[in-house]
């Protein structure tokens, strides 16, 4: 029960950004540890600046500390300089709240938001003084737990993480605490017994309780080892977001971090049905927070934090019923605050009207990002991102007309059925957007950000063979050539080599775990950071472990293959996903089920859940295929006129600060 601060303090004088490690944020808690309390260490396996804003960890931090039988502290990956200092001084990973050794906690609970943080997870477990493999852990070692979107394919880390939480954590952390409290009280501290008990909690997956049977390279079966362990682990979902108004005390870091603003989650889940989007598939159904409750959280949050910016977050914030009203209320209720700006990450282009643009710019023009995702209407129907071309142009027009000079456009490349004409459509869209901007300002510019598509588990594209490194490179090169001479367009792209490694993990099985371990042992931490990522290290590790990376990454799967995550359920029936995959190949869009009859994807019916939306009808003019004429998706208005409004029709986009 050590406070390591006196030993850590001298090291901090020797490292970059030492304030990453001091804690002390507004909203931070000083929980009192006691033998009867289950001590959780919540970890984000990347830097403090990336990890601190994670809303999932902040929510659990509060919920756990509200309990009488639990305490929770936080930790993040120390940067390489501090890690070297810690290892040289023989000091372990520590919490930033009370600078307690990570090994003194009962649970090390990781958030997995991105595939490539896997090596950092191993590194942090090791730095905590805990064996990295499940099988090597002794009764006194903490339990290694992981949750977050990547746990929907937990298999690559199955031999390194004792238990995964599938889905939303608000309720299940309490049930886990109960099991661990009993384990702590027991004299024998039987680790297997405790893991077995965890495996019977709905939403908890304990990989060691399952045996994977192979048939050559393919999986033949995944079998529970005990009768009371479920063959299919269903995700957890909270029914009512209003019952969980967390975080109530959002942490305000002392140093600058990403998303450094008040973040209020306005709804969870998304049914737009974009086929590439894992988040939209695994978080169904839609559950809106009531507008009143949003207003209360914003008002209290701003008062408590002193932030001058608030983001209304969700997977597609413009779908929130009455969003225009909420934004207008926020912008116009500025008494005594000196101006609070509003940012709307994930906003559809059809909702970005002149009206919203003019409200937002009253305080400050937050950064704008629209995400058409694909360069042609044909391909947007394949991926079910039903953004009409004229809606995109109208949104862009609205932004430039209200004084914005630059915006970002997000695209994916390497999508199913994509041909070069589709890829080149990206350049055409970008040029058209700059042309619109030129009507308002000579400085009009567009940043085009292109990511290589990585197929994800539990999506209709889970069967698709990802484009290899060379093919993604060729496509990016084509766009570079196309746009080289275009003034006002700046092209940025995600490293195709990183996409390849992400693909290996996103659809890998247990055999990929040893590759992760080998990469970590070879010094491959911080793989999300381009200066530390090297695909060669991954390929060497694959070769050494006899793993063929192309078999995992670029191979198309067939309908009947047992996928490594088939025993994990996001609620979506596999035959629904297959049907949607065939619809994609037929270039057939699927309207949003929030406002149209149910397709029986499986989530609501199996889990007895319902969409919670204040508005039973689609936005005026339709949206995502409802109430729209999809035959005219690629029609481009011939001329744009100043002040043109876009209060109709549909599509999707993001706006970020």
């Amino acid at each position: 029960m050590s406070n390591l601060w006196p030993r850590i303090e001298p090291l901090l004088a020797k490292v970059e950004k030492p304030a990453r490690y001091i804690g002390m944020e507004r909203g931070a808690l000083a929980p009192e540890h006691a033998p009867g309390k289950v001590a959780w260490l919540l970890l984000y396996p990347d830097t403090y600046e990336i990890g601190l804003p994670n809303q999932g960890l902040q929510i659990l931090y509060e919920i756990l500390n509200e309990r009488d039988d639990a305490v929770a502290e936080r930790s993040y990956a120390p940067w390489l300089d501090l890690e070297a200092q810690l290892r040289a001084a023989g000091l372990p990973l520590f919490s930033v709240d009370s600078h307690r050794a990570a090994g003194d906690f009962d649970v090390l609970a990781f958030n997995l938001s991105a595939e490539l943080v896997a090596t950092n997870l191993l590194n942090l477990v090791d730095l905590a003084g805990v064996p990295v493999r499940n099988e090597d852990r002794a009764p006194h070692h903490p339990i290694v737990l992981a949750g977050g979107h990547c746990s929907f394919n937990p298999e690559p880390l199955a031999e390194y993480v004792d238990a995964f939480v599938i889905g939303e954590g608000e309720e299940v952390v309490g049930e886990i605490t109960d099991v661990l409290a009993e384990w702590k009280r027991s004299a024998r501290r039987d680790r297997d017994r405790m893991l077995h008990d965890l495996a019977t909690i709905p939403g908890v997956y304990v990989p060691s309780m399952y045996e994977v049977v192979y048939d050559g390279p393919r999986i033949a079966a995944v079998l529970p080892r005990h009768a009371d362990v479920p063959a299919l682990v269903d995700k957890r979902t909270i029914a009512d977001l209003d019952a969980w108004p967390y975080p109530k005390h959002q942490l305000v870091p002392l140093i600058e971090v990403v998303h450094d603003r008040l973040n209020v989650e306005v709804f969870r889940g998304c049914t737009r049905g974009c086929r590439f989007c894992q988040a939209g598939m695994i978080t169904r159904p839609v559950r809106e927070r009531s507008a009143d409750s949003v207003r209360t959280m914003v008002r209290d949050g701003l008062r408590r934090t002193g932030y001058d910016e608030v983001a209304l977050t969700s997977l597609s914030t413009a779908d929130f019923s009455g969003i225009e009203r909420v934004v207008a209320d926020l912008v116009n209720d500025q008494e005594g605050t000196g101006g609070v700006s509003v940012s709307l990450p994930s906003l559809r282009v059809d909702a970005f009207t002149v009206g919203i643009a003019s409200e937002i710019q009253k305080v400050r023009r937050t950064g704008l990002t629209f995400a058409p995702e694909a360069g042609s209407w044909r391909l947007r129907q394949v991926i079910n991102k039903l953004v009409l071309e004229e809606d995109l142009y109208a949104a862009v027009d609205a932004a430039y007309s209200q004084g914005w000079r630059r915006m970002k456009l997000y695209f994916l490349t390497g999508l199913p059925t994509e041909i070069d004409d589709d890829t080149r459509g990206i350049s055409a869209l970008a040029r058209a957007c700059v042309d619109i901007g030129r009507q308002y300002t000579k400085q009009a510019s567009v940043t085009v950000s292109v990511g290589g598509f990585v197929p994800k588990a539990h999506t209709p594209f889970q069967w698709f063979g990802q484009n290899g490194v060379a093919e993604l490179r060729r496509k990016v090169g084509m766009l570079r050539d196309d746009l080289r001479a275009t003034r006002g367009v700046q092209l940025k792209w995600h490293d195709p080599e990183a996409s390849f490694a992400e693909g290996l993990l996103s659809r890998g099985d247990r055999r990929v775990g040893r590759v992760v371990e080998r990469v970590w042992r070879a010094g491959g931490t911080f793989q999300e950071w381009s200066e530390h990522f090297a695909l060669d290290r991954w390929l060497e590790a694959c070769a050494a472990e006899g793993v063929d990376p192309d078999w995992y990454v670029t191979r198309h799967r067939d309908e009947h293959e047992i996928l490594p995550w088939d025993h994990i359920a996001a609620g979506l029936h596999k035959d629904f996903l297959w049907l949607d995959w065939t619809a994609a190949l037929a270039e057939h869009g699927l309207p949003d089920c929030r406002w149209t009859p149910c397709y029986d994807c499986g989530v609501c019916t199996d889990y007895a859940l319902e969409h919670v939306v204040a508005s039973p009808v689609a936005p005026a003019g339709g949206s995502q295929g409802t109430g729209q004429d999809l035959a005219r998706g690629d029609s481009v208005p011939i001329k744009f006129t100043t002040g043109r409004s876009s209060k109709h029709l549909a599509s999707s986009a993001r706006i970020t600060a």
Partner: protein
Amino acid sequence: MRGGARFPVRLRYTKRGKVRFLGHRDLARNLERAFRVTRLPLAFSEGFSPHPKISFGLALTTGFESDAEYLDVDFREAVDLEALPAALSTELPEGITVADAAWLDDRAPALQEAVTAVVWEVPVTDQHGEPAGAAALRAAVSAALAAETLECTQVRKGRSTIVDIRPLIRRLAIVNQTDRDPRVLLMDLATVPKGAKPGEVMPALGPFTADRGVRTHQFIERDGVRYEPLDVDTRARVAHAVAS
């Protein structure tokens, strides 16, 4: 600089403990946020992106502590000066305490130009980070005070230059003589024309280092007289007990 603002205030605050690792820019952000949380009537600059009118004094090197940090802030209307230090302190991270406040004259020169001397108390370590030997330090201090010039290497924006810091040194004194504790050197240094950091001064004196220490005073000098920044160009100074 102060435009139409009518209620300028000068504050003294501390930076003690873990927050010594907070950089100057981040410290400024935290102070601005504390003003927002307390809902004090900050004056804002004009323009499309208004920002509160707060001007900070000399930046404190990250890793060092202080009992004597200052800032000037403009309010739109009169505030309760008595209540100000406590109100702000409760909204600031532990270790940052607003200790004093005073109304500032409209035409008071900015802190960055007005402050001409600072006093440090620095635990001196050797090149291995161990407490410096007493005899060696005493000898080095005497030699430095007797010297006419003292060369010091300064690195600014990646460029290394050698400057004579002897004219900056007003006083050097060893304040702690026990064998167990590190020797604490009191350093009274001018900040004009260009100041030097304790971490730069120590190697100039001998085989010593300093990566922490406390700024105990800053002074504004007028006609040969030293004033604390709250005692000059100000009225109605309010003292607030500093928790140590």
